[in-house]
């Protein structure tokens, strides 16, 4: 089909940058020690040697990396000392995603990520830099050429019974986020906790580079300021952090667009780094929505899917966002358009019985109670602080109790729960891997039971746990779940 090709030379730069970024953290302690002992020469030589190694290995691995597109497969060869040859058949490929970061964009390049069905990341292949045209070519070649035939095969095996019967050249439903929503998503993201943490790390790490003299001076100056001023500084810092949070969300999810194709969802997003991801419908295990405590009163929610394994998706998050933010009342319509296999409704949600409430309260106040007792003996003066916390935890437990519930809706179960964020998940019966009913002695006396339904997700699998449901409710769910003939 085609000759073995190398990646674009800019791939080298990318690889080298990546290698430096990865190793920098590991070397930080060594550097710190060397700096503290003023071993400039050794540090310099070390850094030079190390950099040289990285560059040499970057160039070599670029040299040794070739890919070759064949009839219905892609062949990749790589490795400096150990040669690896890998052939990926087109039929095994689940998704091919193109993404571009800043370096890619400067050279008009793209990264091609090829995902196969396996859980093993090693099996998947990535071409870190090819020209945009080549990337598109690879994508089309491996993905769409035999598409029609595959569909036919699937249809024969009776897999598709949905109403998504393809009209010729139909327009695929698609949703795009507006800037307004994006800003709203950023301002309610609550990620400023994380950014605040980063701020802290940043300052504590540069602290050691500031001579003590300035440090004490600054501290003295700070203390000499009036308390009100300190509060104002605090507020300003928070505000800045908040704005950074908004900016971060806007950059990450810029032009977030989700499109529904016949058998997959397709997401593009990102301002500086353009990302595509393809989510095959077959891999979706559950659909859910999250309402954080900030967003819930505003009637806003974010939508996500749980996918079985793979490298698909944005970050290390266990689930994958399919829409960053939307009004709750629009969710039903959104799902109808984008994911008609899943139905969202909370009407007739079965709540917990009142006798379950004490369990929730006891569970949540154990920790603050212990703290209170410890305080009572040691810092008697301040014992009111943890005591107040107990009260807060009681309220939390009550809200948690109020939120929790389930609903059987045809072949799907909707499970609503709350950690702090309210989480409503739609799980199809055939995606639940196993179902458990748990009862201890008191539960049995009170006819309560805990439900534990596990599904497959990116890492270990996710457990949907609903504590202290009525026993008969759990039995009903088990009957619904059971594959046995109910006639027995």
């Amino acid at each position, binding site marked *: 089909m085609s000759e073995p090709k190398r990646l674009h030379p800019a791939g080298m730069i990318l690889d080298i940058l990546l290698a430096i970024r990865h190793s920098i953290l590991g070397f930080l302690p060594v550097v710190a020690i060397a700096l503290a002992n003023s071993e400039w020469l050794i540090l310099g030589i070390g850094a030079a040697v190390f950099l040289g190694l990285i560059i040499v290995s970057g160039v070599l691995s670029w040299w040794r990396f070739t890919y070759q597109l064949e009839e219905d497969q892609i062949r990749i060869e790589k490795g400096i000392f150990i040669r690896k040859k890998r052939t990926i058949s087109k039929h095994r490929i689940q998704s091919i995603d193109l993404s571009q970061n800043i370096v890619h964009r400067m050279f008009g390049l793209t990264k091609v990520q090829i995902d196969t069905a396996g859980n093993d990341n090693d099996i998947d292949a990535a071409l870190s830099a090819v020209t945009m045209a080549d990337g598109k070519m690879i994508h089309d070649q491996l993905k769409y050429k035999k598409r029609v035939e595959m569909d036919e095969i699937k249809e024969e095996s009776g897999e598709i019974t949905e109403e998504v019967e393809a009209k010729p050249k139909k327009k695929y439903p698609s949703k795009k986020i507006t800037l307004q929503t994006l800003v709203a998503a950023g301002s309610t993201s609550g990620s400023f906790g994380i950014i605040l943490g980063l701020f802290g790390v940043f300052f504590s790490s540069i602290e050691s580079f500031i001579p003590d003299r300035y440090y004490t001076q600054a501290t003295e100056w700070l203390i000499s300021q009036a308390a009100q001023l300190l509060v104002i500084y605090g507020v300003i810092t928070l505000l800045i952090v908040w704005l950074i949070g908004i900016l971060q969300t806007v950059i990450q999810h810029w032009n977030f667009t989700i499109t529904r194709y016949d058998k997959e969802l397709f997401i593009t997003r990102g301002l500086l780094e353009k990302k595509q991801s393809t989510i095959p419908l077959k891999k979706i295990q559950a659909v859910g929505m999250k309402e954080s405590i900030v967003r819930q009163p505003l009637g806003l929610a974010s939508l996500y899917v749980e996918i*079985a394994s793979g490298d698909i998706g944005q970050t290390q998050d266990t689930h994958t966002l399919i829409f960053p933010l939307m009004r709750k009342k629009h969710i039903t319509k959104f799902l109808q358009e984008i994911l008609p296999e899943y139905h969202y409704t909370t009407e007739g949600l079965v709540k917990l019985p009142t006798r379950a409430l004490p369990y929730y309260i006891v569970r949540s106040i154990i920790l603050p109670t212990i703290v209170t007792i410890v305080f009572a003996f040691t810092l008697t003066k301040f014992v009111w602080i943890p005591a107040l916390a107990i009260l807060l935890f009681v309220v939390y437990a009550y809200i948690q109790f109020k939120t929790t519930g389930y609903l059987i809706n045809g072949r799907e179960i909707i499970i609503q729960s709350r950690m702090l964020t309210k989480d409503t998940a739609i799980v199809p019966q055939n995606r639940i891997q196993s*179902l458990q009913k748990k009862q*201890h002695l008191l539960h049995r006396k009170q006819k309560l039971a805990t439900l534990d339904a596990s599904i497959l*997700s990116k890492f270990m699998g996710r457990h949907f746990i609903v504590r202290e449901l009525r026993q008969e409710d759990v039995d009903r769910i088990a009957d619904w779940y*059971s594959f046995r003939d109910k006639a027995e």
Partner: protein
Amino acid sequence: MREQPSERIALDAMKAWKISAHLVAIILLLLTIGAFVAVYFLDFVPYWAASIFAGLSILIWIVSAFIIPKIRWRRWRYQVYDQEIYIQNGILIVTRTLVPMIRVQHVDTQQGPILKRYGLATLQISTAATKHEIPALLEEEAAALRDQISELARVEQDDV
């Protein structure tokens, strides 16, 4: 899930569990002896600490060797249907588990030295996300069950 599963595991399971509890107790005994030796030779180890440790060890031994195996055996039940596996276990918290056949990825039997002595084996059932066990079945029974389940699990899997 209203009725409990019908089948029980092998009676010898109790003996096997008892023996492993004894083995743990021996380790605890050695530690206790060590503690008293420490009291004798080292000034800063108080006598009462070693005594508490000894007491706890005895308690653990009694509970784990003479009380728990019986309850555990009584609780452990399983039933294999054509479409699913139904398991009950737990001492304080009783757990009943349903594993559909079409979710079963593989079945293993497994046997340690203690189980081997009594001709027992443990059956392990794995789905894509979870792992389940039926401990201490008779060897032949475990093997038969393993084959039966893997046969039943061969019904065509819709994805994952």
